[in-house]
C-alpha cells in the first residue's frame, strides 16, 4: 500500500553529506554574488521574489540528496525542477527564456516519468518506498528486471544530468537564468542527477552485470566530446559554459561508470578509487563551473552582452573578474596545480590501473577511453584559450566592451570565494582524498579500512607498489620557484629598458579591433577538423556596386545541431502531425457525433463477450 508517511524520512550517510557540502560551497558564494548582481537589473519586488525562489531551490536540492524515501525524493525532485523552471523564465518578457524554460521543464518532466516508472517497479518488489526496504528487496530482484530498472533510471537521471543525446535542454536553460542561478544549476543541480545514479543504481539496486558500466562509459565519452566540440563552436559565453557542463558531466560519469564496471568485476579497490575520481571531479566542477558562470555574469552585467565577438580588452577595465575567470579557465582546462588537473589525473589513473586488472580487449577499450578523455581536456584548453582570450584580451571589439566597469564588491567576494576554493582543492588533494574515501566507501558499501590512496598529506599515490605519485603542493612550489628563477634570470641578464609601442602591423598603419582574431576564426580549424559531425554551412551575401566593386560582403557560418535536427525535430513533428490528424474526427457535425455514440454502443455490445 502507498505510504505517504515513511518510516525513514531522512537518510544521512557520507554520500548525502558530501552532496550537502557541494550544495553549500556553491550556493553560498552565489547568494553573496546575487546581492550585487540583482541590484539594478530588476525591481525590488522581483529581487525579493528571486531570493525567495533561491531559498526554496536550495532547500529542495538539499532535500533531494538527504531524503530516505522514494516518494519524498520524487516530490523534492519535482519541486526542484519547478523552482528552477521559474528561475529560468525569470525574465518573463524574453521570448527566448520562455522557450528555454518550456524545453527545460518538458525534458525534465519526461525524465521524471521514467524515474517514476523505475521507482514503482522497485516499489512493486519492496512493497515500501523506503530506501532501506528497497535495498533489501533489490537483493532478490531478478536480473532482467534490474536491467530494466537500470535503463529507466539512466534515462531519467540522464535527462537531468544532460548526457548526450538528452542534453538539448541544457544549453537553452542555463544561459537564460540569472547568472548566479546558472552557476547553481550548472554547478549543483545537474549533480543531483549524479547523486541519483550513485544512490539508486550503485547503492540501492546494486550493479549486477558489467554492461551497465560499459554503457555508461560509452555515453560519458560521447558526452565529453560532443559537449566540448559544441562549446568550441559557441560564442555566447554562457552557452559555451553550459556545453562545458555537458562535457564535465561526461568526465564525472566516466568515474562513476568505471566504478560500476569494476564493481561488477569484483575489483572493489579500483571501484572505490574510480568513484573517488568521479566525486572529486564532481566537486571540482561544481566549484570552477560556478566560478566561471559568476564571472560570465559579471561580464554580462558590466557590458550588457554575452556575445564574446563583441567583447575584448576587459582585462584592463575589469582586472579582478579577468583574474578569477582566468583561474576558472585554468582549472577547467586541467592545468596544474589547480583542482581540475587533480581530478582528471585521477580519472586517467583509474583507467590505467583498471587496464592492468582486466584482460584482453577491455584493456584497449579503457585505454582508448583514456585517450579520448585526454583529447577532451586538450579541446577544453583550446576552448578556454578562446573564451578568455577573445573576451578579456586585446582591444575592445565594440562599445559594449569599451565602457565596461569593474563589478561591485559583493560580486567580487562571491567570485573570490570560489576561485580560492579552486586553488585549495588543487593543493589539498591528498587530504580531500582521505575524506572522499569514506564517501565512496559508504556509497559502494565496501570496507575501506585497508584502502589508502595517498602516501602522506601531500602526495597522492593511487596504488601502493606501483610507484605512481603526484604531489601537487610540491609541483606548485617548483612551478613558483622556477618561475621566480626565470624572473631573476631575466632581471640579471636582460637590459631593463622596454619600449611600449604599437603592435607590429606589417606597415598597415591603422591596426584596429577589426583586425583581431575573432572567436569564430579561432575555432575554424576545429570546425573543419570535426566537420563530419558539425556539418558547418555558410551564408554569404555580396552587395555589388558594379561587377568589379563590391560594396558590402556579409559572411556567416553556422553548425548543424545533429541531435536536434535528426532526433528531436522529427519526433515532435510526428507527434504534432498525428495530433492534427486526430483533430479531424471532430468536424463539428452533430450527426457525426451522434453516429459516434451509436457506433460505440453497437461495438461495445457486439464485443461484449471480450470483456
Amino acid at each position: 500500500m502507498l505510504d505517504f508517511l515513511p518510516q525513514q524520512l531522512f537518510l544521512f550517510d557520507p554520500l548525502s553529506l558530501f552532496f550537502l557540502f557541494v550544495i553549500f560551497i556553491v550556493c553560498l558564494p552565489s547568494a553573496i554574488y546575487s546581492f550585487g548582481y540583482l541590484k539594478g537589473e530588476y525591481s525590488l519586488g522581483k529581487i525579493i521574489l528571486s531570493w525567495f525562489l533561491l531559498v526554496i531551490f536550495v532547500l529542495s536540492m538539499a532535500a533531494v540528496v538527504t531524503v530516505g524515501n522514494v516518494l519524498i525524493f520524487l516530490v523534492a525532485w519535482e519541486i526542484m525542477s519547478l523552482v528552477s523552471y521559474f528561475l529560468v523564465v525569470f525574465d518573463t518578457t524574453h521570448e527566448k527564456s520562455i522557450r528555454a524554460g518550456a524545453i527545460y521543464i518538458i525534458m525534465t518532466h519526461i525524465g521524471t516519468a521514467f524515474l517514476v516508472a523505475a521507482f514503482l517497479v522497485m516499489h512493486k518488489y519492496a512493497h515500501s518506498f523506503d530506501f532501506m526496504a528497497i535495498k533489501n528487496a533489490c537483493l532478490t530482484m531478478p536480473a532482467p528486471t534490474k536491467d530494466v530498472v537500470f535503463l529507466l533510471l539512466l534515462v531519467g537521471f540522464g535527462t537531468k544530468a544532460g548526457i548526450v543525446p538528452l542534453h538539448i535542454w541544457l544549453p537553452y536553460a542555463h544561459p537564460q537564468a540569472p547568472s548566479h542561478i546558472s552557476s547553481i544549476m550548472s554547478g549543483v543541480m545537474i549533480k543531483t542527477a549524479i547523486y541519483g545514479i550513485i544512490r539508486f543504481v550503485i547503492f540501492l539496486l546494486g550493479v549486477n552485470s558489467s554492461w551497465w558500466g560499459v554503457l555508461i562509459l560509452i555515453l560519458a565519452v560521447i558526452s565529453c566530446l560532443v559537449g566540448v566540440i559544441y562549446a568550441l563552436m559557441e560564442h555566447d559565453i554562457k552557452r559555451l559554459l553550459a556545453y562545458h557542463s555537458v562535457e564535465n558531466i561526461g568526465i564525472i560519469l566516466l568515474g562513476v561508470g568505471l566504478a560500476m564496471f569494476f564493481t561488477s568485476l569484483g575489483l572493489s579497490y579500483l571501484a572505490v578509487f574510480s568513484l573517488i575520481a568521479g566525486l572529486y571531479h564532481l566537486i571540482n566542477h561544481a566549484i570552477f563551473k560556478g566560478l566561471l558562470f559568476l564571472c560570465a555574469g559579471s561580464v554580462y552585467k558590466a557590458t550588457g552582452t554575452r556575445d564574446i565577438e563583441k567583447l575584448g580588452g576587459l582585462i584592463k577595465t575589469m582586472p579582478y573578474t579577468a583574474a578569477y575567470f582566468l583561474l576558472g579557465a585554468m582549472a577547467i582546462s586541467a592545468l596544474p596545480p589547480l583542482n581540475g588537473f587533480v581530478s582528471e589525473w585521477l580519472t586517467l589513473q583509474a583507467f590505467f590501473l583498471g587496464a592492468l586488472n582486466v584482460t584482453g580487449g577491455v584493456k584497449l577499450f579503457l585505454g582508448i577511453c583514456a585517450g579520448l578523455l585526454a583529447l577532451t581536456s586538450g579541446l577544453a584548453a583550446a576552448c578556454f584559450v578562446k573564451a578568455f582570450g577573445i573576451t578579456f584580451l586585446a582591444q575592445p571589439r565594440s562599445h559594449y566592451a569599451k565602457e565596461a566597469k569593474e563589478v561591485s564588491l559583493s560580486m567580487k567576494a562571491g567570485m573570490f570565494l570560489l576561485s580560492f576554493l579552486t586553488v585549495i582543492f588543487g593543493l589539498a588533494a591528498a587530504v580531500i582524498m582521505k575524506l572522499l574515501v569514506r564517501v565512496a566507501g559508504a556509497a559502494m558499501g565496501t570496507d575501506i579500512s585497508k584502502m589508502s590512496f595517498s602516501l602522506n598529506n601531500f602526495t597522492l599515490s593511487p596504488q601502493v607498489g606501483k610507484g605512481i605519485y603526484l604531489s601537487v603542493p610540491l609541483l606548485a612550489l617548483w612551478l613558483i620557484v622556477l618561475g621566480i628563477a626565470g624572473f631573476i634570470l631575466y632581471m640579471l641578464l636582460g637590459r631593463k629598458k622596454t619600449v611600449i609601442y604599437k603592435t607590429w602591423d606589417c606597415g598597415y598603419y591603422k591596426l584596429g579591433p577589426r583586425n583581431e582574431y575573432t572567436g569564430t576564426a579561432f575555432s575554424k580549424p576545429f570546425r573543419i577538423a570535426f566537420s563530419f559531425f558539425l556539418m558547418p554551412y555558410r551564408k554569404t551575401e555580396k552587395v555589388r556596386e558594379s561587377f568589379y566593386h563590391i560594396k558590402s560582403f556579409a559572411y556567416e557560418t553556422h553548425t548543424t545541431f545533429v541531435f536536434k535536427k535528426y532526433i528531436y525535430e522529427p519526433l515532435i513533428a510526428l507527434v504534432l502531425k498525428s495530433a492534427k490528424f486526430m483533430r479531424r474526427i471532430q468536424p463539428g457535425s452533430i450527426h457525426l457525433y451522434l453516429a459516434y455514440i451509436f457506433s460505440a454502443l453497437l461495438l461495445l455490445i457486439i464485443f461484449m463477450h471480450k470483456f
Partner: protein
Amino acid sequence: MCWGLSQVFALFWEFSMQSIILFGVLVSTYLMVIAKRTPALIRSFRYQSFCLFLATVIIALREHELDLYVVAGLLFILKVVFIPQLLYRTIKKIKASEELGLFINPQLSLLWALGFTYLSWVFAVYLIGAHDAVQVIMLAIAFFVVLAGIFLMIFRMTALAQIIGLLVMENGIFLLASMVSGGMPFFVEIAIFFDVFVSVLIMGFFVYKINKFFTHIDVNKLSRLKG
C-alpha cells in the same frame, strides 16, 4: 363452461389486440423512416404515440392499476395531442422549408430500417430467449423503435427531425418499460413525462433561436465549433 369460453375469448382478444397495436407501432415507425417532409413525420409520430396509448390502456385493463390509467392519459395528452401540435406550430412560425433534409434517400432508409428490425429481433432473442414469442416480439419492436429514433437523429438534417427522433426513442423506451417490466414506478413515470415535456419545450425554444441566428434549422450547417 361459458365462463371458460369468455376467459379464453378475453385472452385471445387481448393478445390479438396487442399484436395489432404492435403492428401499428411498427408501421408508423416505418412511415417515419421513409418520411421526406416534416409534417408527415409528425403525423406518423402521432400515430405511433396513439398506438402506445392504446397499448398502455390494454395493460391498464389487464392489470387494473390506477396509475397505469393516469400514465395512459398523460401519454395521450402529451404525445398525441400537445407535442405534435406544438411542432406543427413551430413549423408554421419559423416558416422554414418543410423538407427534412435526407442524408440517405427513403429507399435506402427503408433498407436500413429492415436491417434494424432484424437487429432488434436478434437482440431481443438474445436477451430473453425464444421461448416466449409475444415477449420477444414486444421487445424487438421496442428496440426497433429506439433504433429508428437514433436513425432519424443521425440521418435527418433539420433540428425538428432530431427532436422527433428523440421523442421516438423515448416512445420506444416507454414501450420497453411498459411491456418488459410492467412499467416504471409511478412517480418515475410521471417524472419522465414531465421531463419529456420540458425537454421538448426547451428544444423548441432553441429551434426558434437557431432559426433566428442562422435563418434556417438545418443543424448540419452548424459547424462553427470544431476541433
